[in-house]
C-alpha cells in the first residue's frame, strides 16, 4: 500500500485499522488487510453516489452488504423551531427551503394547514393555480430523481438530459413566481400575486417542449439493457414492508397499492381533474423509474386541464385581516414591494399604513387548535402538523417529511445485495436531505 499518498493513508484505532481508499488501490488494501474481506465501510456524507449529504455505514463481506445503516442530520437547520419565532406568513419562506426539490408542495401544505386552522377557503383561481404549480413542481422533482439516479448509476446522459428538462421547468417557474426555487409564492389565503399576463402562452410552449423531449427517455433508458439490468429486481420492497415502514409515494405504488392522496383524499379540487395513478407490481427500482416517468406525463395532463380551468378572479381571500397587503410585484430581483402600494401607504392613507404595519409586523392571530394536513408530494405523503395557541406565531410546526420516513427503508432494500445495488436502491428512494433533516 502506498503510504506516501496523503489521501490514501491508514491508521490504527481502538476499533481496528482504518483505511482511506481513493480508488484504484483496492487490491493493495485487501493485501494489507491480510485477505479478511469482512469490514465496515463508510460512504459519505460527501459522496457523489449518496444523493446529497447522506452518510451510509455498511458492513461488507466481499462485495455483499450484510448490514447497512444511514446517518442523517448533516443538513439539519432547525426550520421547525425557527417557525415558532416568526409569524404564520413568514413561515412560508422557511418551509419552502426544506425539500428544495418540491418547495411548492411544502408551501401548499403549510398554507392549507393555516387555512384549515383559520377556517377560510382560498379563491378558485388561487386553487387552480396552486394545482398547476404543484404539478409543474412534480415534473421538475421527478426529472431530478431520474437525473441524479442516472448519475449515481453512471448513466451520465440521463443526468444531462434530466437537468436540461428540469431547467425548462425552473425557467417557467421563475417566470410564473419570480424565483426558480424557494418561491414563497403560495401564501396563507391564496397566492402572493397573480400569474403574469402571458402565463398561458409560456406554459403552452413548455408543454410543447416536454412533449417533444419526454419520449427521449424511453429511447435512452427504458429499453436499454444496462439500465434494466442495474435496476430490475433491485431495491425490492413489497407492500407489507412499505406499510410497516410508513413508506408512501412512488415506492408504495411500485409495490402495487394505488395510494395517492390526490385521489384518496382529494385536496385543492384534485377530484375535478382527469388523471391516472400508475402502479406496477414489481416493487423494484425499475418499476419506480417507470412510475416516475409516467407520473410526469400525468402531471403534464393535469397542467393542461389547469390552463382550461383558470379563469380571471382574485388570488387572495377577501379578508384584509389575513390577506398580505402589499400586492407584491415581480421585479428584476424577484418578488418585491409594489410601488403603487408603497405610494398609497406612504402618501395617501394613514389607515392603510397602520393596517400594513400591523399585518406585516404583528401578523394575524390564528384560533387555537391543531390540524394535520397531508398532501401528495413527489416523494409521498407530506404532512404538516400545525399547532396554534391563539397567537400570531405557531406553537409548533411539525413536518412529516416523506424523505425522512422513506429513508428508513434503505436497510430493508439493500441488505444482502451488492454495494452497487444499494446505490441503485437509495437512488430509487429519491431522498432529499434538505427535507429529511429539516
Amino acid at each position, binding site marked *: 500500500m502506498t503510504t506516501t499518498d496523503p489521501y490514501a493513508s491508514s491508521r490504527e484505532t481502538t476499533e481496528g485499522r482504518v483505511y482511506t481508499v481513493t480508488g484504484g488501490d483496492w487490491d493493495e488494501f485487501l493485501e494489507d488487510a491480510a485477505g479478511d474481506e469482512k469490514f465496515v465501510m463508510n460512504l459519505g456524507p460527501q459522496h457523489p453516489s449518496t444523493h446529497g449529504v447522506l452518510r451510509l455505514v455498511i458492513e461488507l463481506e466481499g462485495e455483499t452488504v450484510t448490514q447497512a445503516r444511514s446517518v*442523517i*442530520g448533516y443538513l*439539519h437547520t*432547525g426550520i*421547525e*423551531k*425557527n417557525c*415558532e*419565532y*416568526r409569524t404564520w406568513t413568514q413561515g412560508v419562506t422557511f418551509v419552502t427551503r426544506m425539500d428544495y426539490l418540491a418547495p411548492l408542495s411544502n408551501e401548499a401544505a403549510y398554507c392549507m394547514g393555516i387555512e*384549515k*386552522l383559520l*377556517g377560510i377557503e382560498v379563491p378558485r383561481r388561487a386553487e387552480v393555480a396552486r394545482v398547476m404549480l404543484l404539478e409543474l413542481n412534480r415534473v421538475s422533482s421527478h426529472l431530478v430523481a431520474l437525473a441524479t439516479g442516472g448519475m449515481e448509476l453512471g448513466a451520465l446522459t440521463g443526468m444531462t438530459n434530466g437537468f436540461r428538462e428540469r431547467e425548462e421547468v425552473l425557467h417557467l417557474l421563475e417566470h410564473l413566481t419570480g424565483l426558480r426555487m424557494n418561491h414563497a409564492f403560495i401564501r396563507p389565503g391564496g397566492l402572493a400575486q397573480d400569474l403574469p399576463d402571458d402565463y398561458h402562452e409560456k406554459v403552452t410552449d413548455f408543454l410543447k417542449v416536454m412533449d417533444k423531449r419526454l419520449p427521449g427517455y424511453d429511447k435512452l433508458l427504458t429499453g436499454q439493457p444496462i439500465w434494466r439490468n442495474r435496476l430490475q429486481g433491485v431495491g425490492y420492497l413489497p407492500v407489507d414492508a412499505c*406499510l*410497516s*415502514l*410508513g*413508506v*408512501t409515494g412512488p415506492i408504495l405504488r411500485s409495490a402495487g*397499492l394505488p*395510494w395517492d392522496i390526490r385521489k*384518496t*383524499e382529494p385536496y385543492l379540487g384534485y377530484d375535478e381533474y382527469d388523471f391516472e395513478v400508475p402502479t406496477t407490481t414489481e416493487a423494484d427500482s425499475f418499476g419506480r423509474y417507470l412510475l416516475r416517468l409516467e407520473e410526469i406525463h400525468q402531471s403534464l395532463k393535469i397542467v393542461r386541464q389547469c390552463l382550461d380551468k383558470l379563469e380571471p378572479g382574485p388570488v387572495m381571500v377577501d379578508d384584509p385581516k389575513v390577506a398580505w397587503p402589499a400586492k407584491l410585484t415581480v421585479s428584476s430581483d424577484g418578488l418585491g414591494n409594489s410601488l403603487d402600494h408603497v405610494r398609497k401607504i406612504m402618501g395617501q392613507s394613514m389607515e392603510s399604513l397602520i393596517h400594513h404595519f400591523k399585518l406585516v*409586523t*404583528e*401578523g394575524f392571530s390564528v384560533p*387555537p*387548535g*391543531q*390540524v*394535520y394536513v*397531508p398532501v401528495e408530494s413527489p416523494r409521498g*405523503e407530506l*404532512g404538516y*402538523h400545525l*399547532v396554534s*395557541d*391563539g*397567537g*400570531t*406565531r405557531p*406553537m*409548533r410546526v*411539525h413536518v*412529516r417529511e416523506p424523505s*425522512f*420516513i422513506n*429513508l*428508513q427503508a434503505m436497510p430493508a432494500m439493500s441488505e444482502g445485495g451488492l454495494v452497487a445495488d444499494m446505490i441503485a436502491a437509495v437512488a430509487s428512494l429519491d431522498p432529499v436531505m434538505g427535507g429529511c*433533516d*429539516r
Partner: protein
Amino acid sequence: MTEEEKLVGSGKPDPGDEHSSAEHPEPGLEPADSTRPAERIPVVAGRPRRGMFGVDDAGDTSGYGGLRLPAYVPPAAERPYGDWFDEVADDLLEALSGKGIAASAIQQVTIDRGEITFYVQREHLVEICRTLRDDPSLRFELCSSVSAVDYGEEVPQRLHAVYHLTSMTYRRRIRLEVAVDVDDPHIPSVVEVYATADWQERENWDMFGIVHDGHPALTRILMPDDWDGHPQRKDYPLGGVPVEYKGAEIPPPDQRRAYT
C-alpha cells in the same frame, strides 16, 4: 363615587395587578381546571398569555397590560360526534374492552376542525395502537406521523407525543395524543407495532427529550451525538446573533418583541 374619584382612582388596584378584575374573570374565561373533575388531569394545549406587544419591562403604555388570556384547553367532544367518529370510537372501545382495557384508557376525545383526537393514557398506548392496527373494523394500517409538542414551561404535562394514524381501508385519519410531565418524560415505544415510528421516536428524544421506553436504539438522530439539551423544548433558546442593518442593531429573532 365622584367624577374626580373615578379619574384619579380610588385606591383600587391597577389593571392586571393583585386583587384586580383579572383575578375574577368573566364567565367563560376562568382557568379551565376549576371546571374539570379533580381526579382528571386537564389537557392543556396552549400557554396563558398576558398583556400585549411583548412588553413586560416598562410601564404599561399599551393599555393592554391587564389583558389575561387563559391557556387553551381543547374541549371534550360530546356524543354523538357525527360523521364516522362515533363508529371509530365505539369500535375502539369495544375492542379495548375485549382485551380487558378499561374505557378510562382514553382520557378525552376532542373533535376540532373535522379531526378527531384521542387523548390516551401512556400505559395503554401500545395496546391501543395494536388494536387500532389489527381490529378488522378499525384497520389503521399506516402510522403517518409521530411528533411531539412542548406547550411551554407553565403548562402542566407540557410534553405531548402526537401520533397520526391512517386507515387506508376506510380512508380515515385519527390522532392519538399522550401528555406527560417534563420530569417524567417516559412514553412506551410503538416501534413493535409501527416500525416507521423508529426514526420519529428518535427525533422526539433528540428534539424534546421524550424517552420512548422499549425503543430498539433510542439515540439522537438529527443533532450530534454529544449535544446537550433538547432543542425543540420551549425553554431551549433559538440562538442567533444581533445583526446591524442600516446603522440599527437588530436583535436575534428570539429576543425581538413578540406581538402575541
